[in-house]
């Protein structure tokens, strides 16, 4: 299982789109719901669309998966990429129809975005990705966003790696240790997204 990417299959609707994109950039992908595959893989990708609670419930329904992810990422320093709700699950909590516990890897919670006359929600379409500092895997460019909830870090959070703008700054990428999360969809962001996935395959955080 050297150099494989474990793509976690927990019922997320964008699973195959992410698989297609990873295959397109040459990844050796194992689509799996088995923590043993995750324990053996050299990289991990967590997709996700829809509601925070439904995704967290799906992930929690797989015995030992959350624990294995945490061990691989925070003990073994394996590169991890969470996409959209897969990123949001890294938060401590999701505030969608009540409060739901997340993986708790990053300080902050996921809350509804506020619509106004000029700001339509869902935040849907191509938008700027602006890195907050140098040295991030996430480079400046434009990516496809599709979400109604956004990550809100606790004050002075150092986890934010990139932002976008939708009625004010919106977190576009977070990182804690070797776990990177992106709010946008690299698998739907044409060249920009495929390039990010390529860099992820080479990433040595």
């Amino acid at each position, binding site marked *: 299982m050297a150099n494989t990417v474990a793509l976690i299959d927990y019922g997320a*609707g*964008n699973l*195959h*789109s992410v698989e*297609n*994109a990873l295959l*397109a950039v040459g990844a050796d992908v194992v689509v799996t719901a088995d923590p043993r595959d995750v324990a053996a893989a050299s990289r991990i990708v967590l997709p996700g*669309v*829809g*509601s925070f609670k*439904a995704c967290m419930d799906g992930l929690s329904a797989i015995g030992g998966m959350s624990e294995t992810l945490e061990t691989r990422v925070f003990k073994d320093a394996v590169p991890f990429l969470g996409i959209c709700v897969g990123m949001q699950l890294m938060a401590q909590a999701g505030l969608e129809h009540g409060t739901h516990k997340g993986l708790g890897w990053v300080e902050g919670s996921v809350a509804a975005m506020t*619509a*106004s006359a000029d700001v*339509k*929600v*869902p*935040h*849907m*379409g*191509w*938008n*700027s990705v602006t890195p907050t500092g140098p040295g991030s895997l996430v480079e400046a460019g*434009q990516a*496809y*966003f*599709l*979400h*109604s909830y956004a990550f809100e870090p606790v004050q002075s959070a150092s986890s934010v790696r990139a932002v976008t*703008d*939708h009625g004010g700054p919106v977190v576009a990428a977070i990182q804690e240790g070797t776990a990177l999360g992106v709010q946008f*969809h690299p*698998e*739907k*962001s*044409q060249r920009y*997204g*495929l390039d990010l996935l390529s860099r992820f395959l080479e990433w040595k955080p």
Partner: protein
Amino acid sequence: MTVRVRVIPCLDVADGRVVKGVNFVDLKDAGDPVEQAQAYDAAGADELCFLDISATHEGRGTLLDMVRRTAKVCFMPLTVGGGVASVEDARALLLAGADKIAVNSAAVKRPELVAEIAERMGSQCVVASVDARLTPSGRWEIYTHGGRQATGIDALEYARRVAGLGAGELLVTSMDGDGTKAGYDLALTRAIADSVSIPVIASGGVGTLEHLVEGVTRGGASAVLAASIFHFGQHTVADAHDALRKAGLPVRD
């Protein structure tokens, strides 16, 4: 900069073949939706829309295969609509690789379908079609069956209702304008965009690049959908982006 105005080419497909599509000269098979989708991917389309007009049950199976093959090679958002009648229909299309599902007649008959799909798969994947005609009394009425069948339902009320039920986006098509190349129904688009907080796609009647611009500046749309101006080589997606940019609107580089 803020979220960009999306330019969305739309392909009509039936039984797995493009019925109304682009005349890219270098396509080996202009009827192959996958080739057409790849051409639009390369041309920088912001999203792509497949509208299935298959009349037969066999055509539905072919549609799933087509979506699957497209999703393998196209890395942009794909909306698929036409004949989606149940949560199972929507789920099958999403698993095949569609990102959003457009619901039409079935949601007019039973708007709860919007809520059912949104609850199971998320609002972000539900596009509710609002196909409307202007009535002599000056209001807009929902039509089904390609604009042939009146329903008596007020279009603005319907738009607000499906938005409230969890649609993530509205695809607003003027059935009066569709195919006329006379431009979007800007008053209809504006009235709906102003009464919901979700994005609106303007559709139906585009004949010029100026029509795309108006759809946003006067219609208040977040995205513009067009078919024939792209398909017959009249304009490229880049032309559309340029026109929007020159009008001071945010578009993708």
